[in-house]
C-alpha cells in the first residue's frame, strides 16, 4: 500500500456508521487530468474487512513468510498516450474471452469468430473509457493451435492501447506471442502487453514455463484467481496464497518479474452462477487485501449473470462499479461480458463504459468555496424566484454529468419512438463507431512479420 493511502480503519464514528472512509481527503491532491483515456480516481480504500479480519487473510496468504513480489508501475501501450499509470487511477478493460457473442443486430447468440473479435477490438479502441484491451471473444473459427496468435494479431491490428492476453499452455506459443507483440516495433523496456495466468493452472509444467518466457521478456503477469463461493476470509486468504505461490515460482524462472493480482468475478466462469452480495464483498475484500500487500489489483467487476443488457445487468454492473469506486482497484475488468462471462455483447461493452463513466466523478467529490456555495446568488434570486437566468447558472450548468445512452425523451416522445431503452441507444452508437474510418494500427511490415511468425509456428506444430 502506498504512503498516505491507507484508510483509518480504527477511527470509530459515534454512535453510527462504523469506520469512516474520507474520500474528501482526495481533493488535497488533484487527480491527473484526463488524457486520451478516461480513468477512475482511486479512493482511499474501503474497510469491507475489519482490521483483525484483514490480518487473518494476510496471514493465510503469506503462509509464514512467502515473499511479496513487485508490481509494475505502469502497463504500457504502443501509443504512449494510452499508457496506464498504476497507483492513483483505476482503468477499465475487457477480460477473459467469451466463447459466444450476442450479435450487435438482434442480440442473436452464437459461437464467436475472428471477425467478432476484430469488431469488438475496434469498439474497445474507439471508447476512451477502455484502457485494457483483451480478446473479447474466442476466435473459434481459427485452428486451435494458432488461435492465441491470431487473437493477438487481431488485438494489435485493432488497437494501440495496452493489450492483455492469457498465458498460453506451452513455451513455443509463448515465444511466438512475444515475437508477434514485438512486430510493431515496441521498445523492449515498454512491453505493451500483459498476460493473465490462471493460478489454478500453475501445476501444468508447460503453462508455468510459458509464463516464465513472457515474464522474462518483461511482460507483467496478472495472477488470476477464480474464487468459489464460501467463507470470505478463508476463500480470500487461500486464493491470495495460491497467487503468491505462483509469483514465487515465476520469480525463480524470471527474476525481476512484475505481477498484479486479478480476481475473476465470484461465480463467473463456464459453470458459474452469479453470486450476489458474496461477489461484491469478495471483490472489495480482494482489492483491500491487494492494496495492503502493495500489489496492483484487477477485478472482473462487470461480468453480470444476466444474459441480456437488462435491469439485472444494469443492477449488477451498478454494484460492480460502485464497489470499484469505493474499493479502488487498478483495473476494472469484464466490460461487455454477459451470462457470467460466457457471452460477450458489443452493446453491453458500450453500456458498461457508461456505468464506469457514471461513477468516475464520485471520488473527486465537489468544490466547496465562495463561488460554489452561491450564497449571494441564493440571496439575489430570493424565495420563489428561479436560477435559469443567472450568470452563475451559465458558468456552472455544464459541470453535471451527462449520459450517452440513457433515454432523455419525454414519456410521450419515448412511446412514439417505440419505447427505446439504453441498449437501443448504445447499439446506434456502436454502429457509428464501427462505420468510422480508423487508421490501421499495424503497418504492412508488421503485418508481414506477424504472418511469418504464425506460419513458422504452424510449421513447427506439424
Amino acid at each position: 500500500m502506498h504512503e498516505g493511502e491507507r484508510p483509518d480503519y480504527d477511527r470509530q464514528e459515534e454512535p453510527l456508521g462504523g469506520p469512516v472512509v474520507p474520500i474528501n481527503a482526495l481533493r488535497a491532491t488533484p487527480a491527473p487530468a484526463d488524457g486520451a483515456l478516461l480513468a477512475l480516481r482511486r479512493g482511499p480504500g474501503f474497510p469491507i474487512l475489519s482490521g483483525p479480519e484483514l490480518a487473518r487473510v494476510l496471514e493465510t496468504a503469506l503462509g509464514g513468510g512467502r515473499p511479496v513480489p513487485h508490481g509494475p508501475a505502469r502497463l504500457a501501450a504502443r501509443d504512449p498516450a494510452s499508457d496506464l499509470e498504476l497507483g492513483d487511477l483505476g482503468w477499465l478493460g475487457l477480460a477473459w474471452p467469451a466463447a459466444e457473442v450476442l450479435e450487435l443486430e438482434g442480440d442473436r447468440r452464437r459461437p464467436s469468430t475472428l471477425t467478432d473479435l476484430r469488431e469488438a477490438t475496434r469498439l474497445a479502441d474507439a471508447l476512451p473509457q477502455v484502457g485494457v484491451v483483451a480478446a473479447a471473444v474466442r476466435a473459434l473459427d481459427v485452428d486451435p493451435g494458432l488461435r492465441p496468435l491470431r487473437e493477438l494479431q487481431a488485438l494489435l491490428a485493432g488497437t494501440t492501447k495496452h493489450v492483455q492476453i492469457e498465458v498460453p499452455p506451452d513455451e513455443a506459443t509463448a515465444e511466438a506471442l512475444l515475437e508477434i507483440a514485438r512486430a510493431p516495433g515496441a521498445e523492449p523496456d515498454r512491453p505493451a502487453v500483459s498476460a493473465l495466468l490462471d493460478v489454478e493452472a500453475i501445476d501444468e509444467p508447460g503453462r508455468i514455463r510459458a509464463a516464465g518466457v513472457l515474464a522474462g521478456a518483461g511482460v507483467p503477469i496478472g495472477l488470476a484467481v477464480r474464487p468459489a463461493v464460501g467463507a470470505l476470509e478463508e476463500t480470500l486468504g487461500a486464493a491470495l496464497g495460491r497467487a503468491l505461490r505462483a509469483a514465487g515460482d515465476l520469480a525463480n524462472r524470471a527474476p525481476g518479474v512484475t505481477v498484479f493480482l486479478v480476481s475473476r468475478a465470484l461465480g463467473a466462469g463456464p459453470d458459474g452462477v452469479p453470486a450476489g452480495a458474496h461477489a461484491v464483498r469478495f471483490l472489495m475484500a480482494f482489492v483491500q487485501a491487494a492494496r495492503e500487500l502493495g500489489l496492483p489489483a484487477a477485478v472482473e467487476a462487470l461480468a453480470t449473470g444476466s444474459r441480456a443488457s437488462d435491469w439485472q445487468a444494469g443492477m449488477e454492473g451498478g454494484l460492480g462499479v460502485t464497489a470499484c469506486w469505493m474499493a479502488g482497484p487498478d483495473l476494472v475488468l469484464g466490460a461487455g461480458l454477459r451470462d457470467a462471462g460466457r457471452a460477450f455483447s458489443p452493446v453491453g461493452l458500450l453500456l458498461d463504459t457508461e456505468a464506469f463513466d457514471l461513477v468516475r466523478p464520485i471520488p473527486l467529490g465537489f468544490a466547496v468555496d465562495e463561488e460554489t456555495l452561491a450564497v449571494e446568488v441564493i440571496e439575489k434570486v430570493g424565495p420563489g424566484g428561479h436560477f435559469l437566468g443567472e450568470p452563475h447558472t451559465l458558468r456552472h450548468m455544464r459541470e453535471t454529468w451527462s449520459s450517452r445512452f440513457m433515454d432523455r425523451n419525454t414519456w410521450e416522445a419515448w412511446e412514439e419512438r417505440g419505447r427505446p431503452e439504453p441498449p437501443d441507444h448504445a447499439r446506434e452508437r456502436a454502429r457509428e463507431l464501427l462505420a468510422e474510418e480508423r487508421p490501421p494500427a499495424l503497418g504492412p511490415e508488421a503485418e508481414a512479420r506477424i504472418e511469418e511468425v504464425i506460419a513458422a509456428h504452424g510449421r513447427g506444430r506439424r
Partner: protein
Amino acid sequence: MGAVAAEPRIRGLRHPWTIEVLTEDELERVHRATLTVLARVGLEVRSEDIRRELARAGARVDDAAMRVRFPPEMVEEHLALIPPTFVMAARDPALDLPIDGSAGWLSGDGTSAFVVDLETGRRRPSTMRDLIETTRVADAVPELAYLWPTVAPQDVPPHTQAAHYLHVMLAHSTKHAQHNEVYSRRDAQVVLEMARAVAGGDRELRARPIVSTYQCCISPLVYDAGPIEAAVELARGGLPSGFVAMGIGCATAPATLAGTLVQMNAEMVGGMTLVEALVPGAVTFCGPYPTFMDLRTGDYRQDWGPEDTLLKLAFAQLAHRYRVPINIMALDTGAKTQDWQAGLQHAVSLMAVAAAGRAEMITGTGTLHGAAVYDNVNVILDAELFRIICEICEAPSEPWLPPSFAREPLEAWEALGRPGARERARERFREILATHEPEPLPEDLDRELRRMIAAREAEG
C-alpha cells in the same frame, strides 16, 4: 438439515461504514452558509398565523413580504431541541421501527398521478384500486418497512385524498404509514382524528405514533400556507413532522452542488427550526430529494448519477452533524421502465446510501421517470436489490440469489422467450396480489374511518 429460518416481516439496512465527502471545514462552511441564508434571506412563509407565532418566538418577520428571517442563535437553539431518536410505530407493534441509526428502513415511493398498467404495460391515470393494490403488496414485501401513499388516485375528489390515503394505508397494512400528502390544517385535523381512532386515543397516538408526516418546501425557500399550518398542527398532535426539500439544480436551486446543498439545507433547517420554535421538542426530520434540470428539455435530468450520490453523502454528513434523523431518497431513476438504466441507477444510489453512515428512512421504491409514474414491478426488483445490499453490509453465511434472476439452462430460457428480471418480477407481483391478505382493521373501526372520510367529502 437445519431448520429453515422464517422470512422476517421487515428487513432493515445496517450502515457499517461512513463515507465522508466533505471535510470538517467544508461541513462547517456549508452550515455557516445555511445560517447566513436563513438570517439574510429567510423563508417566505405564506401563513399569517404562523408568521405571527414565529415573531413571538424570536424570528424577524416582514409581513408585507411574508418573509421570516431566523437569527443564527435561534436556529442553533432550536436544532438542539430536536429529538435525535424516535419510533415510527406500527399497527402491529412487532413492526415498530426504531429511528435511532441502528438501521435504515425502506419505504415505497410516491405519489404518482400515473401508473403503469400491469396488463397492458401502458401508462394511465392512477385509481383507488391501484392505491389499494400497491399498499397490499408493500405490506407483503419484507424489504418495505413502512408505507407511503404510492399513487394519487384520480377517481376521488382532491380534497378527500389525504383522508383516503391514510385509510388505505391503515386498512390494507399493519406497517407504519408516512403520510406526505397533508396539505392543509383541516386535512391535518382529519388525519389526526383517524390516527387517534386507530391508535386508541390521543395519548396512545403520542406514545406510539403509527403515522408520521412531512411537508415539502417549494424551492427556493417558500412554505405555502396550508402545508406549513398542517406541519405545525400534526406536530402539536404528536406525529413526527418532517421537512423535505426538492431543489432542482439550475432551475429552483443553484447549478453547483455546494449551492444546492446550502439552499436545500436552509429549507429543511428552516422548517425544522420553525416547528421547534412553535412546538418545542417536536419529533421532526429532514428529507433532501435533489434533482437537476435538463436544460435542453426543461424536464428533470433523467440521467442523474454522480451528483446524486455526492449530494446524498453530503446531506447524510449534515444530518449527522445536527443529530437529526434523515430520510434519503434512493432508488431514484429517470428510466421509463425496468431497464438497464433503472437497475444501474438504483444500485449506484442505494449502495451510496448504505455507505452514507446514516439514513434512518430510505425513500423509496415503486416509481419511474423521476417519480412521475408508479410501476409495481419496481417494488419486487428493488426489494431484491435492497436485500442484496443488506447482505453486502451484513456478511451472511449463505448466498442468496434473487428470484428474478434467470436460473434455467440457456436452451430452456430461450424456449421460454428469454424472460428477464422484469418479466419474472411481474409474475411475482401477481402472485403476491393473489395470495397476500393483510390483517384487516376491525369492522367497526373501518366504518368509523369511512364516516370521517364521508364527513370530509361533505365539506366540499
